[in-house]
């Protein structure tokens, strides 16, 4: 075995929040061998980020504190190291990349300066030497025209380019160990692939140890040699990637692997962590019936699934202001002549990278954003022609569920008020008692306790809040719901539960969905038909299986190829042998 670069032994980290001490990391031990990539996987709140920050000695002192264990880096225990020693290691021996590329760079300094700063600090270069080296590094990380880009400010670069700059900074002093905390999560899938390939090449070139932290098992499979799985501040399993992916030991790992919607499979329902592990963490035997691969079949019949929604040549343009008096000088075409039909009871998936206009399309159909021209026929009624009153009555038929669970519920209203409001607006349910009983029924329907009506939104988790939003939408007995990135903000296990819920509700109430997302595998799982959008236009529209198996447009092909396979390298090597 090549020598161990980083060895964490029984690490414990506590946080002193207002309401008492919380253990964020509970005696974790694992090693990162030199030249190898270790994937640290776990859902949000599992303590994976805290572990990485501990290795860098960056845990904010109040409120966090390392309360036990050692972090040996080339034989030296970093927990006992003085701040002075840690400063010499940070950036030189160990460097770190963070998740949010948009805010990781100092907005008021040029990119070149921020790279040369670390060179001057650790390598003792002069300003001129550092600048020259920085330009080389920018070239190495694939920044176009590095000479001119070095002079740019961060806000003049895209998210992907900024992440490349952060990587350039991290590898500037050729560190032994690189820690990457969810470096590609905020990027679009095509750019994510390029950045991952870049990191992989650099690791090869500089023989660096790489500790890669993410919640996306697909990414781990592609690049990690070993995997460490964390669940609620505990290390539940570790081992080499092939063993974990083929014969996971711990029920939580099994659950995690299973609840990921895969591109090639087309199951009716997703397995969730709760199918493998009950609340207390003990394993439960898998109910065989659930694993049976039952493919969804797409056979809309005329009478059961008539056309509910027909969109013809829909345009949404935003004026661009200019000149002295702010006259409109140009139009930004957010949605450019989109047409499609949607049958009752079916789900249309709208997929595309950020900025392709999928959200605007969804909102304009509901006239939350006024479309510039085009027709939206709902049961034959053109929504664009309705006046305010008629539109209000239509509202009960057509609903929307948003992305951010934290901001889609009024923080100052109890859940009861949230659910009762739609009923009041459309006077559903004769009396207050009737409405409250309906609210209780809705809570049960979406899998929540009916006695929690008097609670406030901030007392629920992300997944629970999204269920409340669904309940709120159901309150007006709608026929058609637009889910705008409704699961993107959730952890993969919670995502699976919500997707299953949506499918159950569709089956029970015959709902019709438009499901908007940037995550192709989620769209593939839930949609019957898929529309791929690019800069305001629908480039491809077909059934889900056709789009994924027989993509026609090159753009769709690129999208599909960029999605991590989710099959460990070692396994792939064996299959090709």
């Amino acid at each position, binding site marked *: 075995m090549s020598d161990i670069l980083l060895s964490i032994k029984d690490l414990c980290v506590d946080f002193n*929040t207002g309401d008492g001490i919380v253990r964020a990391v*509970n005696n974790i031990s694992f090693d990162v061998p030199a030249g190898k990539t270790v994937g640290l996987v776990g859902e949000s709140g599992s303590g994976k980020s805290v572990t990485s920050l501990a290795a860098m000695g960056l845990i904010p002192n109040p409120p966090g504190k390392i309360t036990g264990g050692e972090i040996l880096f080339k034989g030296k225990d970093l927990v006992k190291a003085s701040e002075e020693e840690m400063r010499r290691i940070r950036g030189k021996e160990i460097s770190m990349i963070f998740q949010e590329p948009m805010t990781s760079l100092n907005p008021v300094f040029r990119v070149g300066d921020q790279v040369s700063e670390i060179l001057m600090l650790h390598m003792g270069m002069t300003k001129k030497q550092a600048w020259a080296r920085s330009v080389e590094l920018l070239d190495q990380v694939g920044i176009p025209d590095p000479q001119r880009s070095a002079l740019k400010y961060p806000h003049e670069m895209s998210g992907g380019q900024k992440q490349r700059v952060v990587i350039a900074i991290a590898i500037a002093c050729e560190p032994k160990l690189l820690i990457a905390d969810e470096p590609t999560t905020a990027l679009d899938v095509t750019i994510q692939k390029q950045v991952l390939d870049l990191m992989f090449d650099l690791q090869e070139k500089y023989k660096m140890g790489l500790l890669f932290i993410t919640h996306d098992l697909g990414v781990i499979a592609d690049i990690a040699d070993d995997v460490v799985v964390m669940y609620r501040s*505990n290390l539940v399993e570790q081992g080499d990637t092939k063993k974990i992916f083929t014969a996971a030991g711990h029920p939580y790992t099994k659950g995690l692997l299973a609840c990921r919607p895969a591109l090639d499979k087309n199951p009716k329902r997703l397995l969730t962590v709760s199918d493998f592990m009950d609340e207390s963490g003990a394993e439960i035997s898998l109910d065989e019936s659930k694993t049976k691969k039952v493919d969804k079949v797409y056979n809309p019949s005329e009478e059961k699934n008539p056309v509910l929604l027909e969109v013809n040549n829909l345009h949404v343009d935003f004026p661009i202001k200019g000149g002295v008096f702010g006259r409109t000088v140009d139009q930004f075409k957010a949605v450019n002549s989109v047409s499609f039909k949607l049958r009752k009871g079916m789900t249309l998936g709208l997929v595309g990278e950020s900025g392709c206009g999928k959200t605007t399309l969804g909102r304009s159909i509901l006239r939350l954003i006024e479309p510039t021209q085009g027709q939206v026929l709902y049961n034959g009624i053109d929504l664009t022609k309705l006046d305010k009153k008629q539109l209000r009555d239509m*509202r009960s038929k057509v609903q929307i569920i948003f992305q951010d669970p934290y901001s889609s519920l009024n*923080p100052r209203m109890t859940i009861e008020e949230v659910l009762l409001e739609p009923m009041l607006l459309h006077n559903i349910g004769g009396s207050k008692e009737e409405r409250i009983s309906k609210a209780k029924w809705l809570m049960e329907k979406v899998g929540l306790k009916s006695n929690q009506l008097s609670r406030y939104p901030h007392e629920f988790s992300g997944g629970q809040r999204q269920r409340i939003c669904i309940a709120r939408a159901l309150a007006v007995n709608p026929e058609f719901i637009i889910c705008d990135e409704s699961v993107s903000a959730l952890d993969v296990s919670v995502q699976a539960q919500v997707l299953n819920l949506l499918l159950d509700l569709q089956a029970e109430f015959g709902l019709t969905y438009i499901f908007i997302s940037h995550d192709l595998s989620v769209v593939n799982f839930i949609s019957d038909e898929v529309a791929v959008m690019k800069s305001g236009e629908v480039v491809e529209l077909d059934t889900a299986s056709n789009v994924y198996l027989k993509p026609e447009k090159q753009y769709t092909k690129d999208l599909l190829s960029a999605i991590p396979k989710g099959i460990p390298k070692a396994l792939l090597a064996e299959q090709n042998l």
Partner: protein
Amino acid sequence: MSTQVLSNESVKKESVEIEESRSLWGEAWHRLKKDKVAMTCLIIVCLYSLIGLLSALGLVAADWAKEVGPSYAPPFENWDYILGTDIFGRDVLKKVIHGTQIAMSVGLISSLIAIPIGVVLGALAGYFGGWVDEIIVWFYTTFSSIPGIILLMSIAFVLGKGITTVYIALGLTSWVGLCRLIRGEVMKHKNREYVQAAGALGAGHGRKLFKHILPNVTHIIIIFTSLQFQVAIKSEVILSYIGLGVSGQPSWGTMIDDAKMELARDVWWQLAGATFAMFFVVLAFNILGDALRDALDPKLKGKG
């Protein structure tokens, strides 16, 4: 592999009951209670308000005008005028207590004038935008471009003398700050998804603004009020100096104004009395204002 499971801050257990439900206000009060300094300030403010109320009802220091001793008797020499006397031999302590009533009423009523104007205009500008916003922004830019002290003096001068002028002048010059804050906050909340969701449910402008957005900006009003009190109390002194303050009854302003004749002859106790009385309550309002901002600011709350 021990799988000991411990709940973590942001991953709430699906099933485990949480002690009792707490609204955002409850959360804020919970956080405020832990800040010892802020609590003492709150107690000071309540104490002053109580004294002010009692004095307003005439239960305490109603006989401030009674002559209790010789003119300019020094303090701590005689129990029935412990803080000394003024030119007419009236008890400085009673005048300070009566001054509390004036100070608290100036702060309260000037806020009551400034808040409705600031909130209504701010909300309308922030929510509707377009030409409504243009006009309201033009209106408060006009108000804020004239230096506060000149505007204050002009209004007070033009309206003539007395306590009502002090209220109106302070109210009319302080709504601008609140309006600007409310406008910014309403603009921010207008685009939040819970407001759009209400729109999708068919809620009209009125409901969206008053039922959804305004409750989420009320914390600004509370922070503004505590800071407005200290501005009002200090301005009352300046107004008394230029002769436009209260007349016919003692206030901290008139007491400090009298001192400008007395200090030269070493009569310091009336000045000291008013200054210390004012010092503690203004300090308390300042610190309370900061503490409230930290406790009530949802931004910090959201970070969980």
